[in-house]
């Protein structure tokens, strides 16, 4: 059964206030290696056999992401 894993994050031009807070928290804990933090959403779709990336892309464009502020990446795998 194909499984689509979708990662949604804010575009680089949009201020990620949540990410900034988490970055500050990590650095104040002493994790100086943290250069930046980007927060986002993770969505997993279980699909009928044969469903392709094209359709998932359409779902992202129409509903799952808002292209004005968000970008997304899709990874599809076939699992038993």
């Amino acid at each position: 059964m194909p499984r689509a894993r979708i990662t949604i994050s804010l575009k680089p031009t949009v201020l990620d206030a949540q990410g900034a807070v988490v970055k500050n928290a990590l650095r104040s804990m002493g994790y100086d290696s943290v250069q930046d933090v980007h927060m986002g959403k993770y969505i997993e779709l279980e699909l009928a056999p044969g469903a392709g990336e094209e359709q998932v892309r359409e779902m992202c464009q129409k509903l799952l992401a808002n292209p004005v502020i968000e970008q997304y990446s899709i990874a599809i795998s076939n699992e038993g």
Partner: protein
Amino acid sequence: MSSTLLSRAPSQAPPSQFLRWGVVVFPGTNCDQDTYHVLQGVLGQQVRYVWHHETELSGLDALILPGGFAHGDYLRAGAVARFSAVMEGVQRFAAEGKPVLGICNGFQVLLEAGLLPGAMLHNQSQSFACRWVNLRVEQPASPFLAACAPGAVLRIPIAHGEGNYFAEPDALARMERRGQVLLRYCEPDGTITPEANPNGSVDNIAGVSNEAGNVMGLMPHPERASEAILGSDDGRKIFESVILSFAKRQ
């Protein structure tokens, strides 16, 4: 002003024009009754609720998408509501040039539907903001602000978690040129400061319109500030402006 209407709202003379208003109700909408009350009880207008399954809106003169949490605001505020059956009717209604006003969650739905430019982010503070704000009227020529003096400051409350308005710089410049930025968060004297911005909205933007000017969205709640007993009746100006503009067009 018609004196026969004074009995409906003894504190102020209501507008002389009657409009047929529709108040759209999604599952999760919660400001519909307040909005209905202001339109009918305070302003003496004809109002009916429009359920989210309805598609036939031709008998109405003006539409309001009120505040709330339509469809739980899951995914993003307004993201699911914008696919409701009623939104086809709202799209047509707007395309005909009739006034459509989105308040708070209604604004978010109109953004998601592409009827207004831009998008909403979570408040910069990452917390829900519920307080009074001051709004500077930027476009008194707008049909939603026609009852306001140029540079007027309106005192109206906000209550939202996702009201951080965003648009890319080139889109913003285009909106400015076309006069689509209608309201900005400001100090009581009208000056625009970062401190007056309750949610991080770009350029302190609190309300915008579409290019044609007949669709408006704003985060503050004018229906919660339309009677003096509630602390302010500045919100009435928004509804009265629609009525005034409608009368002028007739």
